[in-house]
């Protein structure tokens, strides 16, 4: 581009172009700086997981030898870590199955049938949306004791299911209401039962809403620490975040093992997030975006 044209363009639109470049440059710098701040702690964590403790102290930022997996071997063989991981899978999995099954049932009834009290029932579910259940931990503790499921993973599964239902019913009811009636009516003409209509015609259509509701609930449940802290004492029943506190307490001076423990705990959700980032962002902000 010749000097003349550049000058002409700059003259024409001087404030526009220069302003835009200056502003976008500044915004780009902010974004890059922020991304470095967001990723650096995670990168340091993963790097440190492959170092021995003296190596971490000597060069905390250095790139490690990734074939050096002694810390992970130690975790695998000497700690209860795998047990915690398995427990988290069991508790989260069972809770999600219950949340999605029960949530879809309620949402289908409220969204698809006109019956007396349906609005009241929806309000009842929505009331659970905003209440901070942590503050009801004392009665919950007594309730679990009365049900004899203290120190039993059922206590967690039940609480998580109840906590997940309001958002799930909210999201799914909204979605189910938008589905067209034609398919359903046609099937009804053909003499299909209500259960058959729900199972083979409507359920395949609500899958997108189930994914959103599922992600919104699966992350807080997988990450929860507070309810296990109160309900579970037995080390063999602990979930990952709670087991991490036991583990971190046992290896306080072995930083290599501490960082690899943190890395292993973070790995499953980080990997899934990287693959499904769009769905994660949509799911986790869906309560706040509308």
């Amino acid at each position, binding site marked *: 581009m010749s000097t003349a044209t550049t000058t002409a363009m700059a003259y024409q639109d001087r404030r526009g172009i220069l302003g835009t470049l200056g502003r976008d440059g500044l915004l780009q710098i902010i*974004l890059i700086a922020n991304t470095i701040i967001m990723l650096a702690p995670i990168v340091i964590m993963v790097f440190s997981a492959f170092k021995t403790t003296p190596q971490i102290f000597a060069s905390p930022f250095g790139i490690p030898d990734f074939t050096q997996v002694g810390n992970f071997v130690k975790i695998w063989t000497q700690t209860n870590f795998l047990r915690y991981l398995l427990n988290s899978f069991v508790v989260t999995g069972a809770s999600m199955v219950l949340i999605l099954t029960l949530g879809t049932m*309620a949402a289908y009834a409220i969204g698809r*049938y006109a019956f007396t009290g349906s609005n009241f029932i929806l309000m009842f579910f929505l009331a659970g949306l905003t209440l901070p259940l942590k503050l009801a931990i004392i009665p919950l503790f007594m309730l679990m004791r009365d049900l004899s499921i203290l120190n039993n993973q059922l206590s967690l599964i039940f609480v998580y299911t109840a906590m997940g239902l309001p958002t799930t019913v909210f999201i799914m009811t909204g979605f189910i209401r938008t589905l067209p009636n034609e398919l359903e009516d046609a099937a009804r003409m053909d003499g299909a039962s*209500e259960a058959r209509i729900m199972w083979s015609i409507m359920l395949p259509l609500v899958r997108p809403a189930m994914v959103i509701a599922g992600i919104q609930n699966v992350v807080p449940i997988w990450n929860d620490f507070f309810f296990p802290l109160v309900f579970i004492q037995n080390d063999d029943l602990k979930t*990952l975040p709670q087991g991490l506190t036991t583990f971190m307490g046992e290896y306080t001076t072995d930083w290599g093992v501490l960082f690899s423990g943190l890395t292993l705990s973070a790995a499953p959700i980080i990997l899934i997030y990287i693959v499904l980032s769009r769905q994660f962002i949509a799911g986790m902000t869906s309560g706040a975006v509308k």
Partner: protein
Amino acid sequence: MPKLRMTGRGLWITFLIVPPLAFVALFIVYPIISAFAYAFFDWQGLKRLDFVGLENFHTVLFVEPYRSWTLNAFKNNIIVFFALMVLQNGLGFILAYALWRELPGARFHRIAVFLPVVLSTIIVAYLFKLFYHPLFGVVNISLRGLGLDGLAQPWLGQSGTALWSIIAAQAWHMVGFPTLVFLAGMQRIPGEILDAVRMETESEWVKITQIVWPLVAPSATIVFTLLFVGAFNWFELPYIMGGLDGSPFGSTDVLGLYFYRTAFGNVSAGQQDFGLGSALAVLIFLFIAAIATVITVRLRAREIQI
């Protein structure tokens, strides 16, 4: 929608609606109502004794040492809330604005800013506890490396810096949430409005304050309310990073820790008291409900329908 006619259909709806309702009733509604009832009784361990009226409330609000503990924890929650308003929501708005421009790499930046949000708070807490270590933590090592030896300090070990260090970890953990909620709000602003504004003014500042900010008001209402509820429920980060007593010297004590400690006891105080704990829970609950309602109503009033 088909009208309810047959009993068969009535049974079918009952079958669909009762199990989920039962879960919510038993594990959410019943415990919350009970929490209110518990606060009016004297408790010994897990045993409920006499009805004592408002005595538990009186104790936690006006009788020492509870009074000082309550006030100290409450004061810290206020600090946490306002600090996060700036560090989390304020920064989130700026980042959302930057992402909204769709500059090269925006997709990558968006994924990066939300990555810490999906991590467990416990992982974040331990990670930053290691980073803040006085001798071997990367924070002090970096400061020393930059020749700022004077700034290197035991971040979590002294009253002046402990709470702020934990707040910084919280902001890192959660800034992605308001960022993406604001971003979604900005993306809903119709293009015609923005074009019209571009005709009128070239000032970025005017555009942000007069157009973007008012139009993302619904997003602001939600993230402010959620932050308020979250700040007054704060538990995991101070529990891991400061300990159950809010060390050092109660400087990181917040209502969540104080409530838990009072209800379930701790190593030093030992005694657990469900009555006082429930009274605290009810007070925190009423406070959150009242202020959250005020925030929502006040902020809703300034929302504009596009």
